[in-house]
């Protein structure tokens, strides 16, 4: 009974997820006439690459692709530096107002881009950054940075603290935590020891946010 339901559910979900992808992909291999006259609706026949070659040779697609790549690279770079430093500080260092900073980052993540786009546009105009890729370098971090900082706080908290302590205590004078942060590159799988701060307490509802780091992290690239 459960088995049968699982199979049915699996097929339904697979169709639900794959059909739209297959539809859009098959469209890309159809000719204009084939779409216009509704010939062979479900399968691209005749099969053509002309949309792909046309995109590459007849439009400025190579430029658009370059713009996307440059923007992605620059924004990723800015975001990684800012978010990892900030995330480390909130997760590991003790300073007054730490909890407040953590809440602030969550709030910033939830501020809708719709609220910011008008004033941000004005600020960018005043900076003379409109009509240039740098407008994107400056506006994307408004949502990538809070989000990635929030993820990295979780990540740093989950790392066993002993790794860092061991590193600091081997340094001549118990060097400042900054050296531990910058010089070590712990692999998660090599450190199975539980620590007081790692998240292993009972049922942990924040686990999803942590374990789908990769998937949620994709917002940083795409959205």
């Amino acid at each position: 009974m459960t088995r049968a339901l699982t199979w049915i559910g699996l097929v339904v979900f697979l169709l639900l997820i794959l059909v739209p992808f297959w539809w859009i992909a098959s469209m890309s291999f159809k000719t204009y006439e084939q779409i216009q006259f509704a010939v062979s609706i479900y399968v691209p026949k005749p099969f053509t690459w002309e949309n792909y070659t046309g995109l590459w040779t007849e439009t400025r697609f190579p430029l658009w692709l370059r713009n996307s790549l440059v923007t992605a690279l620059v924004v990723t770079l800015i975001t990684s530096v800012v978010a990892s430093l900030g995330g480390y500080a909130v997760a590991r260092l003790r300073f007054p107002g730490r909890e407040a900073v953590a809440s602030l980052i969550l709030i910033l993540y939830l501020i809708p881009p719709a609220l910011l786009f008008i004033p941000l546009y004005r600020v960018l105009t005043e900076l003379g950054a409109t009509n240039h890729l740098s407008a994107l370098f400056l506006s994307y971090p408004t949502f990538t940075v809070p989000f990635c900082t929030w993820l990295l706080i979780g990540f740093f908290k989950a790392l066993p603290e002993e790794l860092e302590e061991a590193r600091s205590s081997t340094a001549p004078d118990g060097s400042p935590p900054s050296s531990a942060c910058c010089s070590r590159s712990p692999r998660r799988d090599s450190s199975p020891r539980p620590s007081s701060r790692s998240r292993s307490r009972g049922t942990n509802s924040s686990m999803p946010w942590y374990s789908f780091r990769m998937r949620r992290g994709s917002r940083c690239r795409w959205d």
Partner: protein
Amino acid sequence: VRPRSRRGIGARGRETGTALLFLLPLFVLVVGLIFYPFCRALWLSLTDKLVGYPERFVGLRNYAYLAQDDAFQQVVRNSVVFTVASVALKVVTGLAMALVLNNVVRGRNFLRGLFLLPWITSTVIIALTWRWMFDAFPGRGFINSFLLDLGLLSQPIAFMATPAGAMAAVVIANWWRAFPFFGVSFLAGMVSIPRELYEAASVDGAGSVRRFWHITLPGLKHVIIVTTLLSFILTINDFNIIYVMTRGGPGTATQVFATYSYQVAFGQLRWGRGVTISIFVVPILVIGIVLISRYLLRDRR
């Protein structure tokens, strides 16, 4: 390993210094690109700023105007319908997806990755895909051609041309993009429910339906609340899907806060009023954020 508490006052002070240094780039970015524009938004909402003219302070006139504006009331209703319908669908489908995946033994990780495809694909591409799926012309619209071929329709339906059809289309596109995220979150919650609970319930003679109601759902309560709140905030502010699929049309049938704000600000060039529209979302946002931080930050400690 030295316990932290044995470090002296000097080390503590040094740590604060390091923390400030590490937080500096974040601070600069947040103040310059989020906090300052946000304050500008608040100021703009109190002016009658039109593009090309200097702004004049008008007090709360923008707010008063919107409060009695029929189009804006329609926008509020649309946003509520859009958000509630799509979040409710996401919760139900997400639960179903998690239950299915939880019963799959082999290839679960592969399927989980595959099911996440909509979530990692660019929103604009998904919006375009669904615009075509709902197209009235059978050569482009999958739904119409499929229903015609099944014989359920005698002639194609122009979904996007009717208010209800267009709303259904944007709700479905938004739901389709985000339900895998719900499914995977719920699955992670299900995996962390202790197996002994199910075994004990089986011994006591509870069937699978009762086990779901009395063990699975209570165990997932927390994940469901946090996921729903987060998704509620992200959905009520959704711009991409509606803008690409309908531009708020037909008429104002699918106009929501973000698209209406954009249309007023960049279409009619009334920046003051445009900003005010998005500021109306702030109270909802504040309630959502307070609830989320109560749940999420409590875990973090």
